[in-house]
């Protein structure tokens, strides 16, 4: 399928020249096309930030909600209609900062959604403050003495919480990251793909070249089903591992659980007031 199927060329993109978002947008469209997804069954969800504008730049349905709140909205969408393919695309601040609590609990909940996080280790839309993934010591207009807090490690965090698909890619690694997103969407359950990307405007430390020099693909004989090994792999930094870090199959999804025996999308279910009759009888 042609990747143009998902393109919406007449919408102006509000990103800086050289932004990693462009590359990742192309990767996402590529992955969708290769999977042969249909527009009518695809919903993208995002919060707020430069990355969170992404859904506007595809010809798909989307729910562009509040900063940090993409995951509960996405969970609600998938629960209401399990027939939809739900893909969240947002930034590191949105997902690991403002939305941190939702990140923890959505992983525990294991909805069958795919979460692509732009990890550029800086805040772009608000002009260069530290992100939860910023490296210690990075100076910003606010963190003038350098970042003090320990950076979030999304991979170890996700694995420890029981995520069943945890991967790391990079906007500069087009082929690999396309493959990771495809696998994430095909995976039944919560899939996290943390994607490194450069922010040429506000992150002068972690540039495109820096990412290129500081990532290493997991070896061919790496077994992502070994949880302890995956955790060790996920702890690696300089270079950071890219590839599928952890994968586990067979875990029931949130939709399996909440729908019990009937997975009919809620909008197609009958809504007669009559159904209250029996319950009212029980109050006699």
């Amino acid at each position, binding site marked *: 399928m042609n990747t143009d199927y998902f393109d919406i060329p007449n919408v102006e993109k509000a990103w800086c020249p050289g932004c990693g978002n462009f590359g990742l947008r192309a990767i996402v469209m590529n992955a969708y096309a290769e999977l042969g997804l249909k527009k009518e069954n695809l919903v993208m969800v995002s919060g707020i930030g430069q990355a969170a504008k992404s859904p506007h730049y595809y010809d798909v349905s989307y729910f562009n*909600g509040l900063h940090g709140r993409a995951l509960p909205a996405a969970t609600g969408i998938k629960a*209401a*209609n399990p027939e939809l393919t739900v893909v969240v695309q947002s930034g590191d601040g949105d997902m690991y900062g403002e939305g941190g609590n939702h990140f923890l609990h959505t992983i525990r909940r294991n909805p069958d959604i795919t979460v692509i996080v732009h990890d550029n280790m800086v805040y772009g839309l608000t002009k260069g403050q530290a992100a939860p993934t910023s490296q210690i010591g990075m100076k910003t207009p606010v963190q003038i003495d350098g970042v003090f807090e320990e950076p979030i490690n999304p991979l170890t965090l996700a694995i420890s919480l029981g995520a069943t698909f945890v991967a790391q890619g990079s906007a500069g690694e087009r082929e690999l990251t396309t493959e990771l997103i495809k696998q994430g969407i095909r995976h039944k359950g919560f899939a996290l793909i943390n994607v490194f990307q450069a922010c040429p405007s506000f992150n002068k430390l972690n540039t495109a070249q820096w990412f290129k020099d500081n990532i290493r693909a997991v070896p061919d004989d790496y077994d992502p089903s070994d949880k302890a090994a995956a955790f060790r792999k996920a702890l690696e930094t300089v270079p950071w591992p890219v590839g599928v870090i952890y994968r586990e199959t067979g875990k029931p999804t949130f939709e399996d659980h909440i729908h019990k025996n009937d997975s009919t999308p809620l*909008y197609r279910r009958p809504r007669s007031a009559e159904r209250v009759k029996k319950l009212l009888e029980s109050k006699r």
Partner: protein
Amino acid sequence: MAPKKEFSILLAGEAGQGINSIEAILVRLLKQSGFHVFAAKEYMSRVRGGTNSTSIRISGRRVSAPVDTVDLFIPLTEAAVQRYQHRFSDNTITVGEQAVVKSDRMHDVPFASIGKELGDKRYASMVAAGVVAGMLNLDPDVLSALIQKRFAGKDSAVTEANIKAAAHGIQAGKEIAQKIHLSVAIPQSGETASELMMTGTDAVALGAVAGGCDSVFAYPMTPGSGVFTALAQTSHETGILVEQVEDEIGVINMALGAWYAGARALVSTSGGGFALMTEGISLSGMTETPVVVHVGQRPGPATGLPTRSEQGDLNLVLHAGHGTFPRIILAPGSLEQAFFLTQKAFNLADEYQIPVFILTDQYFVDMYYNLPAFDLTGLENKNGFVEAGEDYKRYRLTDSGVSPRGIPGFGPGRVCADSDEHDESGRITEDLDGISRQMKDKRFRKFDLVKQAAVAPDLYGPEDYKMLFVAWGSTLPAAREALERTGSKTAALLHFSQVWPLHSGTLRLIEKAERIIAIENNQTGAFSDLLRMETGAAVERKILKYNGLPFSVEELAARMKEVL
């Protein structure tokens, strides 16, 4: 002394002492026996200890409001006597266990000792229930049957022991009644036994089921959790999706996601939890995603009095969320209103694509009484969504302000919802004097529509009133009964079960009155201010109560008389 036409019982003891069991058995017994019955709880925010109480009012006519009068007091602790003695009169009969409670005029029934003799001191609750049955000469067989039902599935020895405990209580109750020449002649009717009996919580939860609610999201918080629990308990029968979310911010966003994808989701919370949801309410306004939120009020600020009652969050709910967007706030005053307004809330939210609130309070959700079956004739739910065609635009500019609401997966069109100001297709815009302003105006047009759909206030009393008492939400039954007690021929009560926006006929009703007196279960009279803002009419006086308890009929009648 003339026989009593009404009888009021106060049960009080520590959390965990079985007050709830006594109450549950008694109200059913009374209803089965042909009495009208009303019960309300007051409890502390703790799982053990403290003093909790239940007031049960028994009458020959419909009762749905609390009274202060205590005809029979059953304290299970000494502390209970201290806490409630301000409500006792010379006629109050106290029945308790001498070994536990020191009280001069108390009739000694050794509840716990009898329980212990039968094998477990927890049987004491059925002794207490038996005392009431004995004093009021209720049918012991009905009581036994109810006990059997309550303990069904347990060891038959437990059931037997409880029935024996009740028999001891009945005997003791009869003896006390004889000794004091108790004369109670409450008219009984055949109608109550088959009637409904439910709490405010039940009425809201069942109203949601009737309204086509298919999913419920919440984070536990008293007194909002009851509705969540009630829907969870019946979810196997209804198929309603139930999820306890990590926090209230997650709750509202999950509900909005669900509505966006075609669900009819309910959220249930209380003031503090709702405060966390306010950005999500604004998101509902901007994305024009419907949502129904039940807010059970309790006194604030902050944690406040977690298990008590106040109509204190009207302004919070009215103003929650930044920016300008329409909303509807419903405030049921009776169980029937709670059921039908909650059903309606789902259709209003769906039709106008706005947040709709059901505003109750702790007193309301926990109280209960018997009432006739609801007439479901003509009760319909209408889906507000449409099939999205290839050229679908979520925010199409329309004269009414309502854009046809597509949902993803239903039709080929793309459904793009955006929290930024957006164009018709849902794309971000900063075209300030163009589509941005047109979108603001589009949403604003819905204010008129919503106002036209407002529920009219209900007038009780003479049409040609000179004085108008104004009330909203849970104070309705107490205000109605208190007004009757004043005997006034010139005063009427105007009750609002929708507090925002106000019905267009409000001004006419208000203007007819020479004097307006507000009745509110809060500290400042927030509704009085709202009424003035909307109609220009000044409330002459406010009858306020804000100690965490609802108005009783007696105190409200006395305070109404003061202004008459």
